[in-house]
C-alpha cells in the first residue's frame, strides 16, 4: 500500500506545518495545557528519512466489525442505543491527492455523553452495548466510512460550567511519521462548538469550520441512519526537484 505517483514511491519532505493554523501549545483557557506546553522554541528540521517514512497498515489487520461501533461491542442480536449515523469522507493531502491505505482510528462517548473509561465519573449511564472505539483503512481513492451512534455532549472540569460539544476523536496515519495527526470532528449546527475552550484553542475560524462535518442528506440511508461527511487533510509532500545533487556534479 504505497504512495505511488507514476508508479514510484514518493520521498519528498512534507510541506512545513502552518503552526498559526494549528492550536498553539499554551492555551490557558484550556487549563491542562498550562503545565503541559513547552516554553522553548521548537527546533526546526527539514524532514529526513526518519520523518518522511512511517508505518503503513494492511487491510488484513481489520476485523469485520471494526468500523461498526453500533455492533462491535454489542451482545449478539443487540445494538447500541442512540441516533444511528454513518460518518464517511476522504483522506487527502494538501495537494488534493487521495491518501490510500491511511489507518483511521476513532473513539467517542455514548449517546448520553459517557465514555467507557475507568477515569470517567460522569453520572450518565454506560450503554452495555457500546464500547466506543473503531478503525478503518482508506481505499485506493482515499475513502473511508464507519457506522456509529451520535455521541452526546458531556461536562468536564475546566471552567465551572464547561461542556464539550458532541464530537468524535480521530487518529490518522498517512505515509510519513511527520503526517501523524489527532483531531476531533464536530457536528453541523451544534451551538456548543462556539462555547468550547478546546475548540477555542484553534485561532483561525476557518480551521475550526474545517472540523465541522455537515449533514449529508444525499447519503442518508432511509429508515436506517443519517450520514455526516468528514474529509481530512494531511500534510502534502514536496516534489523532489534537484535534491541531493551537489552543485557542479
Amino acid at each position, binding site marked *: 500500500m504505497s504512495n505511488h505517483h507514476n508508479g514510484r514511491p514518493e520521498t519528498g519532505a512534507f510541506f*512545513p506545518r502552518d503552526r498559526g493554523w494549528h492550536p498553539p501549545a499554551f492555551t490557558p483557557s484550556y487549563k491542562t495545557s498550562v*503545565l503541559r506546553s513547552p516554553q522553548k522554541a521548537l527546533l526546526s528540521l527539514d524532514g529526513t528519512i526518519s520523518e518522511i517514512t*512511517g508505518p503503513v497498515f494492511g487491510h488484513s489487520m481489520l476485523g469485520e466489525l471494526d468500523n461498526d461501533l453500533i455492533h462491535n461491542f454489542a451482545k449478539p442480536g443487540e445494538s447500541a442505543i442512540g441516533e444511528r449515523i454513518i460518518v464517511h469522507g476522504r483522506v487527502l493531502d494538501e495537494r488534493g491527492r487521495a491518501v490510500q491505505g491511511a489507518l483511521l482510528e476513532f473513539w467517542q462517548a455514548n449517546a448520553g455523553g459517557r465514555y467507557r473509561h475507568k477515569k470517567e465519573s460522569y453520572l450518565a449511564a454506560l450503554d452495555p452495548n457500546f464500547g466506543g472505539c473503531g478503525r478503518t483503512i482508506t481505499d485506493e481513492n482515499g475513502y473511508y466510512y464507519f457506522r456509529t451512534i451520535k455521541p452526546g455532549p458531556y461536562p468536564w472540569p475546566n471552567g465551572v460550567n464547561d461542556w464539550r460539544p458532541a464530537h468524535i476523536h480521530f487518529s490518522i496515519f498517512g505515509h*510519513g511519521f511527520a503526517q501523524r495527526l489527532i483531531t476531533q470532528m464536530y457536528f453541523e449546527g451544534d451551538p456548543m462548538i462556539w462555547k468550547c475552550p478546546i475548540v477555542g484553542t484553534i485561532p483561525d475560524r476557518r480551521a475550526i469550520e474545517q472540523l465541522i462535518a455537515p449533514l449529508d442528506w444525499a447519503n442518508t440511508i432511509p429508515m436506517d441512519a443519517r450520514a455526516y461527511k468528514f474529509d481530512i487533510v494531511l500534510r502534502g509532500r514536496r516534489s523532489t526537484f534537484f535534491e541531493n545533487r551537489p552543485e557542479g556534479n
Partner: protein
Amino acid sequence: MVQDLGYLKETASQTAGPYVHIGLTPNFCGIPGVYESDLGSAMVNDKTLGERITVTGRVIDGAGVPLKDALIEIWQADAAGLYNSPSELRGHADPNFAGWGRCPTGADDGVFTFRTVKPGRVPARDGRPMAPHITFWIIARGINLGLHTRMYFPDEPAANAEDPLLGRIEHRHRTQTLVAGGTAPNYVFDIHLQGEKETVFLDI
C-alpha cells in the same frame, strides 16, 4: 491576480484528551474483545534481527509530576538502518520488524516501556550519517498538537558528536535532553514538557 496554487489546508489538530486509550489501546483500558490486541504493543518477535533493548521513561509536566494519561508512539529503523516503509528506497527492511510501537504511560506510575532493537544509522538529507536514534511522538490531555522528539543513545558518543541534528542545538547543554540514560540494554528516556530540563522538541 495570479494563478491559484490550489493547495488545501491541513486539518487542524486537537488534543487526544484523557480517554485516548479507548481508541488507541482499548484492551489496556478495559474494553476487551473489540480488537485481538492493542496495535503496536509488540515490536519484536523471535526472528527479529538485532540487539534487543528496552526503553522506559516518563513524561513529566511543568510541576515535575509524571503524566499518567499520556500515550507515546515510536518510529525507528531496523538493526541495519532501514525503515519498514514504502518510501524506503535503499533496500528492504527486516520483515520481522515493523519499526513502530505504541505505549500508554502507566496509570499508576506513569512509566512507558518499549521492547525493541537498537536501530542502525541512517543518512541525513545531505548524505551525512545520523547517530542511531528513535523518533518519539507524545500525545495527551493538555497537549494540543502531538510533540515530536528524538532519543539518542548514551553509548554512542562518537556518532552523537557528528550527528547533524544534535549539532544544530544552539544551547549546547540542552543536547543532553535527547540522550537517554541507563546502560545497554536498558535505556531510560524521561521527557520533560516544560521548565529547566525541558526536552528539545522538533518542528518536523
